[in-house]
């Protein structure tokens, strides 16, 4: 494996602590945290559908995943996450 080729291909722009995405949701956000990281998760409605919003307040980054993206995560190996962390574990 090429040790130095593991670089981020895309970096998500920082979103700070204000979300531009529609956030009207009946449900309370879910916080998933351990001693290494914490994220805030909520379901967001778009005009024509819905996405899962994962927000990292410490990092100030966010990703919005639709059903196809989430479905595809369900059949990945845990090693995929390790690979993603190879690219940019921090900051």
């Amino acid at each position, binding site marked *: 494996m090429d040790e130095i080729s593991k670089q981020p291909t895309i970096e998500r722009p920082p979103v700070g602590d204000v979300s531009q995405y529609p956030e009207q949701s009946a449900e309370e956000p879910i916080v998933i945290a351990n001693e290494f990281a914490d994220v805030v998760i909520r379901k967001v409605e778009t005009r024509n559908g819905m996405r899962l919003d994962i927000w990292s307040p410490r990092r100030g980054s966010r990703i919005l995943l639709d059903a196809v993206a989430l479905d595809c995560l369900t059949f990945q190996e845990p090693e995929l996450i390790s690979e993603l962390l190879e690219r940019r*574990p921090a900051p």
Partner: protein
Amino acid sequence: MNTKPESQSLAAWVEETREGIDSGRFPARAFNDQAVYDLEQERLFSKTWCFLAHESEIPHPGDYVTRYIGNNNLIVARDEHGEIYANLNMCRHRGNVMCKAEMGNASHFRCSYHGWTYKNSGELVGVPYMKEGYEGRLKRKDWGLVRVRVDSYEGLVFGCLDPEAPPLDEYLGGFQFYLDLYLKHGLGGVEVHGPPDHWIADTDWKICTENFAGDGYHTPVAHQWGFHLGYFPSSGSTHSQGWAVSIPGKGHGIGLGHGPNFPPFGGFPDDLVAEMKQSLSPEQVEVFSRTRTAVGSVFPNLSFLMQPFSLEPGEIGVRFVTMRLYHPVGPGRMEMYSWCLVPKNASQEYKKEAYRAYTLAFGQAGTFEQDDFENWTKVTQAAGMTMVRDVDFPYIMGMDSAPDPEFPGPGHAVVPYVNDTNFRNLWSRWADYLAGEA
């Protein structure tokens, strides 16, 4: 010769101690001395199999706890594929502590200093500025967390710092027969009831190991309130009855106390007893059914106790199991870890009752625990006095007892329960390690 005079005299002291044990003497100094403590770290805890965690403390992928072997802090984690690993809790970059929480769940550990990130099994995966900073010189596979060997028996996960040490099965050497009395409570085995209580005590770890290797002798005195008020179903006149069993050459020992009127499997719910009769061998059933109290130590510092405790004076009460680990943190000082084990298949009601009995008797506020630590702390203080350096204690009970030929289990079983045989075996194993001859 570069040998320091102090180390020469320590070696001579260990040799004298070994000889003394054979004639039933053991030095008080062993229980509170810096040089002995240092030698234990170097020669004992770096070679023995040491208890890390019960599997039920880390049941799911990503679950971890931090524990110790000697002065080494370890992360014991179940990885994303369900395998259990133990790694030194130290980042390989500049040595920061990886997991600061004592327990948690994480797929990856990320260092709070420069951000190196590891899989929960210990492999290094993420290095910030890998390309810019290391210019291809750093090979991730060379810089994983420092791994420690693990092995398990019936849910007990042990670790060993010595790659050459014999496997756990051989180390336990037949003591599994007795461990089953605590662990095979029904077909589902046991689980921990919550995280361990733990606290620092000015007590030497060895005093606890010895006490739990079968010191039935102290019970009618140190815990006399339990006898007198009827919370503990034994009586002063019969308390010496039972077996003391040791595994020669291994250091493990157990006391199996009998009560003449104590019913077989008393204090357990009937459905659980029916299951236990299936999960245990006929020989184990024979031993177990006659046992009121089982108090045993796995060398060097893990112990178990099963006994009944009654909330209503005069009743049999409920049986509970506690598991304890004595983590040495200095000469005459330790961190006590105390768990309650409950049968996985038992009703919630019984689990609650057993836990209640456990907390009344053991854990830092437990009545028996306080009786014991009051004595153990005083013993430790005394052992540190200057005049005590040359004082021995007698270990001569049962010096000439022949093993009970009727006893159905492995090891060396003698009667009565009130006996020093297990302790002589314990100390001679301890001294073998200190002499570098284990």
